[in-house]
Structure formats: C-alpha cells, structure tokens
C-alpha cells in the first residue's frame, strides 16, 4: 500500500493527521483505561517513568507520587498535555527518543506502535523503549487488535492488517472533515513476537477493549 518511504507515509497518514485533529481528538480521550491506571498506581512513590506517545497527557496525572515525563510526535497534542494537565512533556519521535539509556523505572507506550508502517520499525520502537528502563524495569505496550468483531469497526481474523481508518472531525458551522490514519492491526500473538524480536522478555500479556497489551522487560 506504500509507494513512498515509511517516514514520508507516516508523516502524511499519522503525524499531520494528529496535528490537524488534536483538539477534537483530545476531547474524546479523557478516561484512563483501568489496566494502565493500575500499572501506574502499582509503581513505588518517587519512581521515574516515561509515557512515550502521551497524546494529550491523560495518563500523566494518574499517580501524582511519580515523576513521569511524556513525549509525543505531535506538537499540538504536547501543548495540550502541558496546558491542560500541567504535564512535563517534550516533542519527540518514538524512533529517535531523547531519553538517557537505562535511566527510568518504567515506560508506558499506549496506542503508538500500531502507527508505525513496517514491522521493522515497530520492533525498533519496542527496542528503544526497552533501552530506556534500567535493568528489569517494566514496559507496558498497547496496540490495536485485528480481532475486534464486537466493535463497531467489525474487523476480525480475516481482515487486512494494514489499513487506513477514517477520523471524522465535526466542528460547529463547518462541514465534516475526514482524515485517514494509518494503523497496523495486531493479530493474536504478534505483539509478543515483536517484543522477543526486539530482545525483550514478555512478563504478562492480554487483550483489553479491542487492544492487545504486553508488559515486558529487558531481562527475565
């Protein structure tokens, strides 16, 4: 489905879309998911962590006894994370992260890697996350599932994994505008395979709300 480089493709079908839809997208993303909240609240007070692809920063205030730094590729979303949630945030690409290696206790990366358009780049991203945590630190990754026949999108095992998903922006007094976002929909077991290929160890994994998730580490 791609004729251009993955970087250029993602610039068109991921980065520019999020910058264009940021306020509308953000207004639909307020409620933290329970499993992610419990991962954050289980961290020791004063622990240091990263939220890579923090979007509007909805996970940054979940546990106020943590030092948590957010990053996102979209400067529009990062500004929202700072102004609306007083988040400690930077603009950065998940494949060129500016964090000191082996420096933090945990990383969360929610709904990010499914926007990378080759398997190599998705695995490279997981590898980069694993490098940020100190030995044994935990990394929580969520990605959209292919198997979501009960969702309104209705994809299942037989659907195409690389797909464009429309985002319809409705604003008062303006015609609806549709943006196409690229997704790689993960099939069962694939996220664990990517963790192993990235040199990580899978500690826990599961399915929640149309997503596959994994908690992994850089050592057993």
């Amino acid at each position, binding site marked *: 489905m791609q004729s251009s480089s993955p970087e250029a493709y993602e610039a068109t079908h991921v980065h520019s879309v999020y910058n264009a839809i940021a306020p509308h997208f953000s207004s639909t993303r307020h409620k933290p998911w329970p499993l992610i909240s419990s991962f954050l609240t289980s961290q020791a007070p*004063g622990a240091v962590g990263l939220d890579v692809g923090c979007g509007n920063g909805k996970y940054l205030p979940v546990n106020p006894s943590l030092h948590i730094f957010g990053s996102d590729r979209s400067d529009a979303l990062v500004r929202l994370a700072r102004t609306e949630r007083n988040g*400690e945030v*930077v603009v*950065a690409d998940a494949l060129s*992260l500016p964090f*000191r290696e082996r420096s933090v206790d945990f990383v969360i990366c929610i709904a990010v890697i499914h926007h990378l358009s080759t398997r190599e780049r998705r695995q490279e991203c997981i590898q980069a996350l694993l490098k940020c945590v100190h030995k044994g630190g935990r990394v929580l990754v969520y990605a959209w599932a292919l198997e979501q026949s009960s969702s309104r999108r209705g994809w299942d095992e037989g659907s195409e994994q690389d797909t464009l998903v429309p985002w319809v922006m409705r604003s008062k007094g303006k015609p609806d505008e549709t943006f196409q976002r690229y997704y790689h929909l993960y099939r069962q077991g694939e996220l664990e395979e990517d963790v192993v290929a990235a040199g990580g160890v899978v500690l826990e994994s599961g399915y929640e709300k149309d997503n596959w998730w994994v908690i992994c580490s850089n050592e057993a």
Partner: protein
Amino acid sequence: MKVLSLNFLTCAVKACKSSSSSYPLHPQDAELVQDEIELNPDMLINVLPRLDWAALRTTSSELGFPPLPEQAPTQEELQADEKLVRDLHHLLLETQISEGKLVCANCGHSYAVKEGIANFLLPSHLV
C-alpha cells in the same frame, strides 16, 4: 520544563548516544521561571538513586545555582539534611526552563525550548 527532566534527557541523534559528551545537554539563553510547589520529601529522596549526580552538578552550575556537593548524598544523608532537601526541591522541581535552547556538545545540534516545551524532532539529515 523542570530541571529534573534535563537529568533524564540526552541528544536524540543515534550516533551521539555512545558519546559521553552528548549528556547532559547544555542550556543556552535559558529563561528560568520559578513555581512554588509543595515539598514532598519522600518523592525527592526516592528519586535520588535515579539521578546522574555529575550531570546535575553541571546543569546546576550552568544555570547559575550555588554549587552542589561533589558527591551525591546517600538517601539517609539526604533525609537528615533539611536544607539540601529544600535546595534540591527548589532546583529540580520548582525551577523551570521556559525559553531557550538545549545544546549537544557532541554534534552541536541545538533543541529549542518554547513555552516550557523542548522540541527533539530532528532534521532529516540527522535521523
């Protein structure tokens, strides 16, 4: 951005990661703002083992703060030293860089900080 964050940030250029001169990044033309934040001694004492003390000393002196002890205190020492707890709280959490640049001493690239947000997106020739 808080001074604490600077202790966890380094150059985004892959080729710089292996060079010790890429860390810490050096603030230039930094405008500082001070926020009053309630002191939470436990959060400060617990973050101590995660800090790179040598880098923090560099950052602190580059921002014009009084010198920090040469050696990092242990958690027990910090717990017993109210003044150092207050000083570190002020430096790490209450002091923010609102505008300026962060410069990598290895590649020379400079990252802009605007309205408290540093931008680490790289021009294509550095990716």
